[in-house]
């Protein structure tokens, strides 16, 4: 009882934060008038990701995302201008601190509250590609319609770190190219799960980042659990990135009685040749989680041997492969 009261207060506080932080957002172009009922909306925040944008937009348009609502955090690489030209993008920009906005969560919470109510909303970073069961034959609307019928309000998709074979700076990434062509390998079976008692979500760690950078202090390894797809209500709020939400019921994207719920994967194409420069920059800005501990670890380990590949790495083929490996599930969707 007390617990749920505390959670309620927390949710309100986050909503208040979102309200406070939204003043720093400046509209670049607002095309939200084009949004139709039932559209699947994508929310994202980005900084200097121009090189990734063409493929990112193509990938999600192809899945059937109807509108992109993007917060640009002071890009200087031309990405903002590029996005502003896209007919299905609404764009906001801000020079405010990424860290102080809870890594963009406050900004997006605000936009979702304003434009996402009643829609299925997908919150992803520009280096994340959403994969769900049957994504090669069914548009995202098929998934959300099915979730609606099943009375499911949130859909989990674990972050799966993708990396190339050999030095990560060996092959240059060309704009418009599928990043998975280069970063096509992943760790198939070294993940660790714990339940977060207070929020009810699962806390997943593991993968190449745990294996290579955090093998001596696993607790510090980044969280891989994500709940990117939610039938949004203006009362909802993300708490920490898209790792968890309030109200807590939305975090229960897993089954506890032995069965499997449907789930997807976010292919995380972070480790391209663009990474070392980015890591360096992030390190000096210090705008990332927990004192950018992650980037410090990368800097230490990547200096001499930037290779994440090992003998047991698996090469990505399609969602069915991930299903068989047990990284995602069709649940009862057939």
């Amino acid at each position, binding site marked *: 009882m007390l617990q749920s009261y505390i959670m309620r207060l927390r949710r309100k506080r986050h909503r208040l934060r979102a309200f406070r932080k939204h003043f720093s957002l400046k509209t670049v172009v607002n095309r939200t008038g084009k949004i139709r009922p039932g559209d699947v909306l994508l929310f994202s925040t980005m900084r200097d990701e121009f090189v990734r944008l063409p493929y990112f937009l193509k990938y999600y348009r192809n899945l059937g995302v109807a509108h992109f609502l993007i917060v640009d955090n002071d890009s200087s690489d031309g990405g903002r201008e590029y996005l502003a030209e896209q007919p299905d993008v609404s764009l906001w920009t801000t020079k405010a601190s990424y860290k102080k906005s809870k890594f963009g969560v406050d900004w997006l919470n605000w936009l979702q509250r304003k434009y996402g109510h009643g829609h299925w909303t997908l919150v992803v970073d520009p280096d994340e590609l959403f994969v769900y069961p*049957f994504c090669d*034959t*069914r*548009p995202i*609307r*098929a998934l959300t*319609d*099915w979730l609606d*019928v*099943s009375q499911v309000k949130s859909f*989990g*998709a*674990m972050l799966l770190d993708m990396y190339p074979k050999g030095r990560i700076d060996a092959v240059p990434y060309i704009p418009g190219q599928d990043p998975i062509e280069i970063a096509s390998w992943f*760790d*198939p*079976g*070294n*993940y*660790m*799960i*714990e*339940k977060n008692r207070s929020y009810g979500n*699962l806390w*997943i760690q*593991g993968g*190449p980042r*745990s*294996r290579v950078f*955090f*093998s*001596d*202090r*696993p*607790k510090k390894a980044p969280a891989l*659990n994500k709940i990117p797809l939610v039938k949004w209500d203006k009362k909802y709020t993300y708490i920490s990135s898209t790792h968890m939400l309030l109200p807590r019921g939305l975090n229960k*994207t*897993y*089954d*506890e*009685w*032995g*069965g*499997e*719920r*449907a*789930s997807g994967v976010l292919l995380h194409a972070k480790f391209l040749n663009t990474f070392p420069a980015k890591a360096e920059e992030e390190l000096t800005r210090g705008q990332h989680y927990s004192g950018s501990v992650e980037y410090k670890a990368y800097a230490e380990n990547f200096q001499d041997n930037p290779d994440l590949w*090992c*003998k*047991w*790495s*698996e090469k990505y083929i399609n969602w069915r492969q991930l299903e068989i490996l*047990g*990284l*995602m*599930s*069709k*649940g*009862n*969707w*057939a």
Partner: protein
Amino acid sequence: MSVGIVMLVHTAFNRAEQVARHWAASGCPIVIHVDKFVSKPVYNDFVKALADLPHVRFSKRHRCEWGTWGLVAATQCASEMMLREFKDVRHVYLASGSCLPLRPVQELIDYLAERPQTDFVESATTADVPWTIGGLDHERFTLRFPFSWRKNRFLFDKYVALQRTVGYRRRIPNGIVPHMGSQWWCLTRQTLSAILEDPDRAIYDRYFRTVWIPDESYFQTLSRLYSRQIESRSLTLSKFDYQGKPHIFYDDHLQLLRRSDCFVARKIWPFADKLYEAFLTDQASAMKRTEPNPGKIDRIFAKAVDRRTRGRPGLYMQSRFPVEGRENGLTCAQYSVFEGFNDLFENFEPWLARVTATRVHGNLFAPERAEFSGGQTVMNGALSDSAALRDYNPRAFLASLIWNTRGERQCFQLGPRDRIKKIEWDIAKDPNAQVSVISGAWAVPLFKSNLNFSEIREEAARQQRIESKHLDVLRSPWTKARVRIWSMSEFIEAPMEPLQTIIDEIGKQSQHGLSEVPKMSDLSGFGQFLQNLKNQGMHPYLMGDFPVEHHQNEPQSGKRKPYLVR
């Protein structure tokens, strides 16, 4: 014009229109019922869109909420209209707006023309069918259900509970026997009109109005009163999942549906363009002319339900994280744990690998690192040998290892030097584990070591303490693993017998049997070593009795049987 179509529509009107035109093109008259919930302009547009078809009628609109009487009322009205307005209709086919005819309509017409007296309605008594949602089967017909299950679950449940406590039972009118079955039927004019014109219809209607899910029982029950010949199956292919909602068909089901041989499928996703395109054109004649057989699709949907309710045993992942006791197997396959064997035998691991053709690891839970077979630093699944990573979540480590190596049996060593505290219970409770213990064998490496005796004494005491606790775990009533424990003295009396038992149980023995024997450490002086420990005040007991005079490997008479726990 012998088949009339009654169509219940509440959404996706462009698709409903497309399907209606398809039926009409083959000369079938259609009566459409549109849910009252649909707004007036939308309804009017829909009516207007179909205005050019002469044999399409629209019946009085009712509110059709799932599992309520409205659906039956709508069907009654539309059927009455059909029988009244189209005199030469012989069969009436009940379909929905999201139904899709798979075979050419003419085939359906011919099929029914050959069976003029047959009613196709799935109709079974409650005792005989497993599809009960919410734990209600016969009570559907003996309780009242005035509250919506979807919208008012709380009141629904409370009201059911209340009726159960006070022992309320409704009388079933006229002694009819309640039957249930798919909502989608195809009845003959004779049967259908007999139901609709029954002098007692008011009584039945009043009764079924508060039965739960009357659309699956009204016609299914009453047709039993009048039909001359019932085929208890639906001509409509429709699959339900474990929550009782229909599975939806998408573009990628095209081949599956082609092979289904059914006349009509439900329910089709409104945006499945390829399906509509493929089946609503005349080329659909590519389908074979055979008896309908929805069985072919069964497997795929049964599997989906199984995956959702039971899942894959031994898998822990983002959408399957069972609470303790509901794992349906902590791991996904059998594995063997050996304790003390590599202390007692010099070449136990390579020997075991040779005779069993399994994957044999060293001490996976060793304090320094996970000793994977062949000295690998990374194993299947990119599992790291880092001790820190392993100890961070040993249970995930073990479950992942067994999951990643599906199809190949895993064996590993365990001992009191290892980090066993956080994993011993998981192994003990896992029915997939085969645990074999030679208790006290940890003393052999100490015996061979070059440590100062005081250090040895301390270490021996520590390891004995740990192993003793560990044996308590293995002997606890919660243990589900297959556990065998021998004391060391017991084991070395006749080592081959227990080894043979273990190897047999693994069941992957190479043909030539145990032609080769592992080499036992030289134990001369071991008895004296234990005596020295005793003299120092440390009492080694887990290894059994060793006389100070040593007689190694001499089989004694009267071998003891291995000690099998559970």
